[in-house]
């Protein structure tokens, strides 16, 4: 090789090295940021394998319920994501939503306008005051769906360390304390530890819509109209429940029992599944 060329290369190699050292990590970082941003935009999902869990309501002796493998959003759907959705789908805006899909008196109650969902910090919070119909429409728009009760309960049985902590009294006490703060304000999702599946905020943020929210009770005892609702209240809720100490589960099922497709609450949000 030409001696001059060799010398030039030798002289510039360190500089080239520095240049490479500068570019490569930067692009890697850019890739991570882009990935994170994509995740922020509602991408990040967690895969849960098929398994079993013990539901709160079941016929005595039924034992565990089987859940097929599925994917679940790592985090609840945010206000920012829902804002993008109503921007693209005007029929779901507050002023235009149809009565059969949502009650205009409650739908997106805490937004200040059709497309005003708050500050940058507020946009990262879970969206609430959405009806079941609206939640389904959002999930469908990204090729997803709402999780079923079974799937949600299966994912939510996990503590930080264990996949099935549903019989751990300390875990259940923590859940009851979390539920007691429901009206007291939402934390940033980044503050929350993922559970053993990698899912965040199932208990600490809001109640969450599920696809079959009104099929929560399996009972042989049909005492006529209103029987299902009555089973959720008074002492009869404890009859037929597999674990009367699981107050956290009772609270979740009691909330579901009162809902209709148009219902919306400040403490009720959702996440999607595939």
């Amino acid at each position, binding site marked *: 090789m030409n001696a001059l060329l060799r010398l030039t290369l030798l002289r510039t190699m360190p500089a080239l090295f520095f240049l490479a050292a500068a570019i490569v990590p930067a692009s890697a970082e850019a890739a991570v940021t882009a990935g994170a941003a994509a995740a922020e935009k509602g991408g990040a999902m967690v895969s849960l394998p098929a398994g079993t869990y013990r539901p709160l309501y079941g016929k005595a002796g039924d034992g565990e319920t089987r859940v097929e493998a599925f994917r679940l959003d790592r985090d609840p759907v945010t206000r920012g994501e829902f804002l993008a959705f109503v921007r693209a789908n005007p029929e779901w805006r507050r002023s235009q939503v149809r009565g059969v899909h949502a009650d205009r008196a409650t739908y997106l109650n805490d937004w200040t306008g059709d497309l005003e969902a708050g500050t940058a910090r507020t946009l990262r919070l879970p969206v609430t005051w959405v009806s079941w119909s609206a939640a389904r429409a959002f999930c469908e728009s990204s090729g997803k769906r709402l999780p079923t009760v079974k799937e949600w309960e299966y994912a939510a049985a996990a503590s930080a360390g264990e996949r099935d902590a549903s019989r751990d009294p300390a875990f259940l*006490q923590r859940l009851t304390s979390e539920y*007691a703060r429901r*009206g007291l304000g939402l934390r940033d999702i980044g503050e929350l530890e993922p559970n053993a599946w990698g899912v965040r905020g199932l208990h600490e943020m809001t109640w969450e819509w599920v696809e079959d929210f009104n099929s929560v009770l399996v009972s042989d005892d049909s005492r006529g109209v209103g029987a299902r609702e009555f089973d959720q209240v*008074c002492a009869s809720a404890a009859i037929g429940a597999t674990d009367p100490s699981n*107050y956290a589960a009772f609270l979740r099922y009691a*909330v579901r029992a009162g809902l209709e497709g148009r219902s919306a609450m400040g403490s009720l949000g959702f996440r999607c599944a595939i």
Partner: protein
Amino acid sequence: MTLNETAKKNQPEARRRSFWALVGGATTIAAALLVLTAANLFRDPGSSFRPAVPVKDLPSIKGEMVAHLTQAPEVPAPLDRDYATKVIVELETTETVQRLADGVDYTMWTFGGKVPGNFIRVREGDLVEFRLTNSKTSGVPHNIDLHAVSGPGGGAAVTLTLPGGGSEFSFRALNPGLYVYHCAVSPVPMHIANGMYGMILVEPKEGLPKVDRELYIMQSEFYAKAGKKGEPHTLDFERGVAEQPTHVVFNGSVGALTGDNAPVVNVGESVRLFVGNGGPNLSSSFHVIGEVFDHVYGEGGSEVTQKNVQTTLIPAGGSAIVEFRTEVPGTLVLVDHAIFRAFNKGALGMIKVEGKANDDVFKQIKGFGVMEH
């Protein structure tokens, strides 16, 4: 004989036979009817001659009014009517952080904003139209079970109310007496333990005897578990199951009826206490230090069941009405006489009696110090 001749010869006999067959048949039918009638007569007279559900004579309803609800220890004024009316009761459930004791804030679930819930006063025979709403800021649904109600769940079956929502039902106040009401959404112990109880008085048709002062007292327990720093206490479920409260209080917090919060009455006044026990677990040995109950309506029923009582038992989810006349000035102390609860857990209240001393009834003869000889 030919066939014809045989037939002719047998005709009278045939006629006789069919006659007796007829008689036999008729007798059998008559006998059967007789047996059935006899059976009817000796059957339980109630089952076939009365309707399946006995129905009291319900008075007709004249007019309507909105109930005036009060917060403990105040009681709505005695009802001044001799007819049944439609009473509209509007009550809202809330969930707010409130003081349970010094240094202990607790997320209280309430009927009407405070623990215990508002006092409702109606008259025997009234048609009560109950409108329950649940604050928009609540996190869970609520409902109501009033012990005065004859009907499914005491109303709970038809009043499940989501935050931001409302429900309505009506019932007839068939039974006079003092009744507890509480929330009955599952898990029921949690809703009650967090403060969702109150009382409804159904005055008997003839009203209660007049007294100078009526007060509303409700005992209950709390099972409080400290939250993270800066956050309120919440329900300690394990303590609740073990029935080991951290606090036993009158009217929803330690000190709700002491010091400046103590009601004041005058010497010589007759006092009636409507005392309830929201539980969720403990029964109360209710005693007023410095007084004897002249009358006790045991278990909050509509009749005086005992006179001259020192301490009366009030079951969890029950009540009692006690009456006494104050004779001397001083501070009456209300306690649950399961005495550790009064001194260590907060089951202590006061009524201040003001006025002239009455040495005939109570007099100090010698004070502290060494006895003089």
